């Protein structure tokens, strides 16, 4: 092919600017100031969690103790004070982000990977499969999630991996039912019928039309799931069933400070605040995502 023929072949779509979906998404997300702040908070915590081992040395700074420094109240040198073994609480709380965030993320990921396909299939095919799956999740949903956590950890042992599974179980149901609803709504919309009318087979149709549109709706639920997993993990750790001390997981830190709450309340205050801020930020971010991703609100 000659070069000048190639030059003439400018794709029509290249001639006109395209509003990128990401750009538009950000435009709408940025309307919600609270969500933008929340996003930065989440990013900061995420960064901290990722770099925790680079910044701090686990053996000396996190679990290494110095009894001469014990129970110092918040001051310039130790803004969050120190615990009864003389460890700096600021360092421990910041390092703790690694555990809480990792547990939260992996739980949400697990819920998504397991719950989304099950829910989507149930919603797409309906019938007996749908009925069966949804009843099973209903039954799981009727057991308090903390109880499930306690049972699983008690039965299978005291490991972080087990903890993640224990926390994820109730979440799978909620992601599955969200996916099911999303797929059912999309399946009955006319653009799916339109795709069938042009002769699309089921599989490409699901991959091109159902999944991307459903993801919009599910992503929000997954974000909220991260927050609730952090809370569940902390609750279990607080009860002594989660990550064991001296690991500075936030729930474990709360549990550790519990005995001294009357005299040294800062030991529980700061880990508590850390949980609250993280979960709040995640929830605000979820709210922002929901508004930014909903195609009905576009315009």
């Amino acid at each position, binding site marked *: 092919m000659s070069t000048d023929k190639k030059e003439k072949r400018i794709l029509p779509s290249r001639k*006109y600017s395209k509003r990128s979906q990401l750009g538009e998404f950000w435009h709408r997300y940025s309307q919600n100031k609270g969500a933008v702040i929340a996003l930065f908070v989440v990013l900061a915590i995420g960064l901290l969690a990722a770099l925790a081992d680079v910044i701090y040395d686990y053996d000396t700074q996190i679990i290494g103790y110095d009894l001469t420094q014990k129970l110092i109240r918040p001051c310039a040198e130790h803004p969050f004070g120190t615990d009864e073994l003389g460890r700096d609480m600021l360092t421990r709380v910041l390092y703790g982000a690694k555990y809480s965030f990792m547990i939260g993320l992996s739980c949400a990921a697990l819920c998504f990977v397991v719950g989304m396909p099950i829910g989507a299939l149930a919603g797409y095919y309906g019938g007996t499969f749908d009925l069966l799956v949804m009843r099973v999740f209903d039954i799981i949903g009727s057991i308090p999630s903390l109880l499930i956590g306690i049972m699983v950890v008690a039965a299978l042992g005291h490991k972080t991996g087990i903890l993640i599974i224990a926390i994820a179980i109730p979440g799978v149901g909620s992601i599955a039912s969200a996916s099911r609803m999303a797929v059912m709504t999309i399946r009955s919309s006319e*653009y799916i019928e339109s795709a069938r009318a042009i*002769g699309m087979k089921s599989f490409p149709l699901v991959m*091109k039309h159902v999944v991307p549109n459903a993801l919009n709706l599910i992503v929000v639920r997954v974000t909220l799931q991260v927050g609730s997993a952090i809370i569940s993990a902390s609750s279990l750790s607080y009860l002594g069933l989660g990550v064991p001390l001296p690991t500075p997981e936030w729930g474990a830190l709360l549990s550790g400070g519990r005995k001294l709450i009357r005299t040294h309340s800062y030991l529980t205050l700061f880990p508590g605040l850390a949980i609250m801020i993280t979960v709040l930020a995640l929830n605000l971010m979820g709210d922002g995502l929901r508004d930014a991703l909903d195609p009905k609100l*576009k315009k």
Partner: protein
Amino acid sequence: MSDVILDVRNLKKYFKTPRGMLHAVDDVSFQIERGRTLGIVGESGCGKSTTGRAILRLIEPTAGEVIFDGEDVVKLSKQRMREKRKEMQIIFQDPFSSLDPRQTVLQAISEPIKFNKILTDRYDIEMRTVELMRTVGLAERLINAYPHELDGGRRQRIGIARALAVNPKFIVCDEPVSALDVSIQAQILNLLEDLQDQLGLTYIFITHDLAVVNHFADDIAVMYLGQVIEKAPAEELFLHPLHPYTRALLSAIPVPDTHNRPERMVLKGEISSPIEPKDECRFAKRCPFATDACRAKCPELKEVVKDHFLACARYGEV
């Protein structure tokens, strides 16, 4: 034999409901000649949309034959049916929900071309898309726009371009203009007319708007509760409506004219249930002329005048 492109015989579609079988389409038969337009009119729930979708097998018919170009599409395998859909297309009512909100104009129009491997080279596909956009009157600069950035008329044009992309011979237009404003409605109707002339298309035009169907269709079938109760060439039907329901329907059209206002025939009584209907004329409960004979047996569609079909027991009497 005339050039019949579509021959629908005894088409039935029943839906299961908790109270029994709902007869959405009950024994519908008609023929369409190549290049003509059959209008299907009726009120909501009369089964007109279901008929259109059953012909394309977007809804599987319960029984009946749909002979398209000499081949019964109801008997085709799923694979063969997908092939056949290149020749049989549909335009949807709601231009807001019939487009994937995440697809640009280019993606929406080129999807059928890509998927059916009509063209494979990216440049050819895009050029064909631009050509289709021009055909339906969409400016080329909108190629990267998303549906939510466009108005209803333009979205409907995308829907039409999408249907045309596979070079169909036959298109079911399911209320294509009901969601549009009058001035836009006229633009789309003219476009559909021009396309029919240029491409030799055959249409089924489903609508509840009698003024539109009178303008657009060559023949009109009137449906009531799942059945065709009258079918005739458009002019004949409007001049000599025979079925009492057709007459009521025609008299109820609001005419934008302050002179010669039609005498209105207002219907009373309840609409019969389409669930497990009795063997009686389904219009009998609302019909001012109903007799015991009407309630005893459901009348069949018969040719009473040349090309004029009617299902009414009291033909010739009222």
